[in-house]
């Protein structure tokens, strides 16, 4: 079963964090995101800072992450 963790998402970062629940095992976070190319109108020069912040927030939970 997957639960979308929108509390970990940022509006300005194209991506989502489903949390996958596994029977008899700990759940894990499956992050998907896309960084628009420099030529894109959606390019964000602060992308890396935001990504860093998101991963920091998520890693505090101590869960396994795949992204």
């Amino acid at each position, binding site marked *: 079963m997957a639960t979308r963790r929108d509390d970990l998402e940022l509006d300005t970062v194209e991506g989502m964090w489903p949390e996958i629940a596994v029977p008899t095992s700990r759940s894990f976070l499956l992050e998907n995101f896309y960084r628009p190319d420099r030529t894109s109108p959606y390019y964000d020069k602060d992308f*890396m800072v935001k990504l860093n912040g998101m991963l*920091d927030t998520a*890693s505090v939970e101590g869960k396994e992450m795949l*992204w």
Partner: protein
Amino acid sequence: MSSHRNGSSCKQLKSLFRSLNIKQLIDQPTRISKNSTSLTDLVAVNWPQNVCESGVLSVHLSDHERVYCVRKLNRKRAPSQVKTFRNYAHFNVDAFREDVKGVNWNSAPGPDEPAIVDDLWHDFKREFVTVADRHAPLTQSRVRGIDNCP
């Protein structure tokens, strides 16, 4: 993420991976054009031991190849081990000392016979272990296996 291996975005990303102990699994190009190949699609994990396979699949109708990874769901338990311990549950240190004192340690040969150090050691060990076995007998117990998976 970056088509330039030494670009600033790439360096930042590598630094981020290091700081969070994250391993990037893809090592083949995912965007192949006439004149260049670049690795722009990544799979990164912080528990690589749970991923048994990863790679790049060719997708002919896209300008990007598809990256994938296979995450193990059924955790294999390491088989249990049988270990030998000494049981100190009824160990009485005073009684043990008394018994050790009572052992005849003078098994060294007389002055005419050569002393062989190995024999002396084996005699000592046999006597000591006999007393130790009486006071803290050896017992076997099944313990949880150690997961040595990388």
